[in-house]
């Protein structure tokens, strides 16, 4: 599936992750500074919305999820545990969690549509364009896509159904005609492989594990 290419933008990525700034914003939120929520929102509204929208296939529901998430960060900023990774990945995980909760509340009909719209979404015109941010996003997205391409088809399928589709492991098993245990193994192996491809230390917390626990699949 080709991704739409926007003109000839080739400037270097200008919006790299800025973990220290994110941590600073979280500190201000913990101190009760309401304007810091605005900043957090400004920094993450796009990726958060893109993710919620992908899972829910509904802009209004996706906005509801965003409001719920950012409001919950304001209410209880201590939910973010600094020892467990970056603000960015934590926030997106919260968005993912709430969006999956929301899609599970929705009728199953919508979920089927998400599946059908997957391919379309990749080619859809971007709702809002910011040239530099888009260039940065494309660089990152290309890395992720390349990394995803290294996975076996079955590993990729298991991870993307769970992550983008919001399906449970048992649902992924049923959808792919695979035993549940195999789905679990594929998700773990796929995650480790992706992490390795994306620049994490090989092996990580599980020294000795081989990156691919199952045969590549055509």
């Amino acid at each position, binding site marked *: 599936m080709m991704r739409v290419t926007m003109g000839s933008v080739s400037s270097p990525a200008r919006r790299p992750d800025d973990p220290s700034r994110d941590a600073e914003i979280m500190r201000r939120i913990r101190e009760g500074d309401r304007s810091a929520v605005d900043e957090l929102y400004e920094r993450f509204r796009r990726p958060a919305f893109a993710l919620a929208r992908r899972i829910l296939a509904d802009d209004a529901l996706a906005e509801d999820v965003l409001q719920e998430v*950012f409001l919950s960060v304001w209410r209880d900023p201590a939910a973010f545990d600094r020892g467990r990774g970056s603000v960015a990945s934590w926030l997106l995980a919260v968005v993912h969690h709430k969006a999956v909760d929301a899609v599970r509340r929705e009728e199953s009909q919508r979920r089927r549509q998400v599946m059908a719209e997957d391919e379309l979404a990749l080619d859809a015109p971007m709702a809002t364009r910011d040239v530099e941010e888009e260039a940065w996003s494309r660089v990152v997205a290309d890395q992720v*896509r390349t990394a995803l391409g290294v996975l076996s088809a079955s590993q990729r399928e298991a991870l993307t159904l769970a992550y983008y589709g919001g399906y449970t492991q048992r649902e992924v098993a049923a959808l792919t005609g695979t035993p549940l245990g195999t789905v679990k193994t594929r998700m773990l192996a796929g995650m480790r492989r992706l992490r390795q491809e994306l620049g*994490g230390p090989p092996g990580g917390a599980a020294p000795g594990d081989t990156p691919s626990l199952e045969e590549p699949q055509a």
Partner: protein
Amino acid sequence: MSADHGAFDELAVGWALHALEPEDEAAFARHFPGCARCAETVAETTEVMAAMATDLPQAAPSEGLRSRLQAAVAGTEQVHRSAAPPAQAAAVPVPRLSRVPRRALAVALVAAAVATIAGLGIWNVVLGAERRELAATIAEQREVMDALMTPGRATIAPLDHDGRQVATVVARDDELQVLAYGLAVNDAGSTTYVVWGLGESTPQALGTFDVERPQMSVRTVRSGLTGLDDFAQYGISIEPGHEAPSAPTEVVATGQVTS
């Protein structure tokens, strides 16, 4: 590293992906606190997920959301975990005395019921079946899960027949549902199942339902009820005709409220 930790490695990934089944989620929730290795796996998975989020078409929410969020933040106070119990603790409903306590229906509470259902193998989808059928099966399972997982207060009573669980009663403020997974299909033309509330006084008929197929199904047997916490036990009987008699004739399953 212990070899038998592998299962938890897998659950940690599913946990981060919010993709675990309730029984796995309950098992992992018991294991997770204090496990550094699982904390690491969850953190790694979370980072990988964030990377996957970048592989999406960029889009921005409407401008209206910013002002809605600002208004919501302006009207919301923060919680302080380490401080004294927050003021809203007083608003938590106090359980009524001498009644079966009713609690929020948390995932963990239904885990036992769901584990039972899963153990029956109904959730196992035949391999190689058409995807359309699989999707339909999942939709049915989803319906059942939604019925179980609907937020709110509820009481749950798994009902046994000869030591085997055959149904679960889920009683809420506004309706009474029966999740049937082991009751025989009845002849709806001449018989009916009746749900009974069992307490200190005589059994009270709460509603009727039919079992139309051997597969797991959910039946709403009555709506608009109040006072469901009057019962510590529920029972199901099979009766001739279409109406509930004044007392059960043939009780086929009974069970205590567990939550």
